[in-house]
């Protein structure tokens, strides 16, 4: 970490300021558009400040995993290609993109967003496999939260394609059947820089953070997944404060999200 940059950031925060003049617990303005990609079975574009990303859903029929023979498969993948940020390089998935994929994946899975049993066509033989790809277009921070919101919005937008008698998918014809979603887990990441807690960090803020925690909440306010990141250790008191901030932010985001998917 660039320690001079962190010192400057802490100085700014000590004057109760952020680089973009936001309050510490303010999320940047968020817009969610559904159905932006015609070739995908479902898609969403989410913009939060300068950060913009597209999530797309593709469906196929596949063999289930042997330990969950009567359940469909939901898989999230994130590609940090050189498009969205000069720091990203092409090549195999970096550890950052793997972490983002897995944290989004875990939020949806542990939050029981999908009734995966309803995705079973023939137990042990055929189930629906749902691939969600989250692609940043412009990265200025907080891909974890915004990626998860985009992934969930795209799932809400998804409609099954038609399947003929032989079981072949006709991707050109979409039915009006939607995915069996039953819960909307939403994540909020809170970062710690020095003694300060911020939500919705920009890239500059992420570059100098000591620690972060991503909390995933269900509609009833219960937690369904947590991930701590970065090196900085946290006290139990820190974690308590961060959870409270995350919950407050999640409630505001949920209002925006629910309006968008209506």
């Amino acid at each position, binding site marked *: 970490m660039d320690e001079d940059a962190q010192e400057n950031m802490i100085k700014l925060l000590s004057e109760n300021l952020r680089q973009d003049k936001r309050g510490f617990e303010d999320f940047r303005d968020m817009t969610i558009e559904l159905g932006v990609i015609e070739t995908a079975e479902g898609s969403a574009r989410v913009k939060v400040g300068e950060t913009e990303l597209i999530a797309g859903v593709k469906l196929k029929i596949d063999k289930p995993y042997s330990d969950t023979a009567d359940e469909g498969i939901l898989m999230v993948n994130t590609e940090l290609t050189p498009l969205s940020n000069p720091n990203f390089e092409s090549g195999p998935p970096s550890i950052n993109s793997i*972490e983002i994929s897995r944290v989004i994946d875990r939020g949806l899975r542990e939050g029981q967003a999908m009734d995966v049993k309803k995705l079973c066509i023939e137990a042990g033989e055929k189930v629906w496999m749902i691939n969600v790809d989250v692609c940043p277009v412009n990265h200025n921070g907080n891909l974890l939260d915004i990626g998860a919101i985009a992934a969930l919005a795209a799932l809400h937008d998804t409609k099954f394609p038609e399947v003929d008698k032989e079981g072949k998918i006709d991707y050109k014809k979409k039915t009006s059947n939607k995915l069996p979603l039953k819960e909307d887990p939403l994540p909020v990441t809170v970062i710690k820089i020095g003694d300060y807690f911020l939500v919705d960090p920009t890239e500059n803020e992420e570059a100098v953070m000591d620690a972060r925690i991503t909390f995933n909440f269900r509609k009833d306010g219960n937690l*369904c997944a947590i991930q701590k990141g970065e090196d900085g250790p946290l006290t*139990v008191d820190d974690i308590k404060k961060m*959870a409270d901030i995350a919950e407050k932010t999640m409630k505001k985001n949920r209002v925006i999200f629910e309006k968008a998917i209506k």
Partner: protein
Amino acid sequence: MVYKKRLDGRKMNETREIEAKAGVIKKADGSAYFKIGKTWAYAAVYGPRELYPRFLQNSNKGIIRFSYIMMPFSGMGERVRPGPNRRSKEISMVSQKALNSVVDLVDFPNTVVDVVVELPQTDAGSRCAGICAASIALADAGVPMKDMVAAVAAGVVDNTVCLDLSYEEEQYPDYAKEKLDSEHVADIPVACIPSTGEITLLQMDGIMNKDQLIDAINLAKEKCKEIVEIQRNAIHEKYKYKINKKSMDWKKELGE
């Protein structure tokens, strides 16, 4: 029904039996095994040694490189395919970050300390066992550290906070005979610096509320103070023998 009696009869704040030993891999600069119930972790530490590829080098301080590897036969279900996968890469990363804040490598610029953790058999709690083993192995290798890191998973089963879930407890709704208060099970791996009480690893999956989270972290934090004694003891055991032998020679020289 609330979860009152655990499947294996343990108390809520009781871990499975723990066994730790330092210096189990002779080729390594430091090594250890850490067993908690049926979860076994071996750790080997190599370094500080020069880091390649060179572009990864940090001229300010040495870095840790953590690899978490499940042996192909170590899983309860199907064979685990060898080689890194998304899960093992993520666990390697969070484990590395759990150790970073106690290890002090400013005197070893451009170097790497390789920490390799392999698990011959697992029954839940593998990342915590890996961190405990790695911490002993780092101390055994003489890597400068501010403290040990201890780790244990807490959990919520049927609305009851308890410690160190086994694989069966993670699947509790399948085993429960009574009607459940809550169908949900949550698993919360926690790593902690026992001397300061600071948390260096925190993950959670499952469903729980905020109060249960804080209770679970506190429970794990308290237990880490006990686990670190087992880790320290493993180091003491290894070096005790040498000291005793030496002191006996010294007594012989004096003709006692």
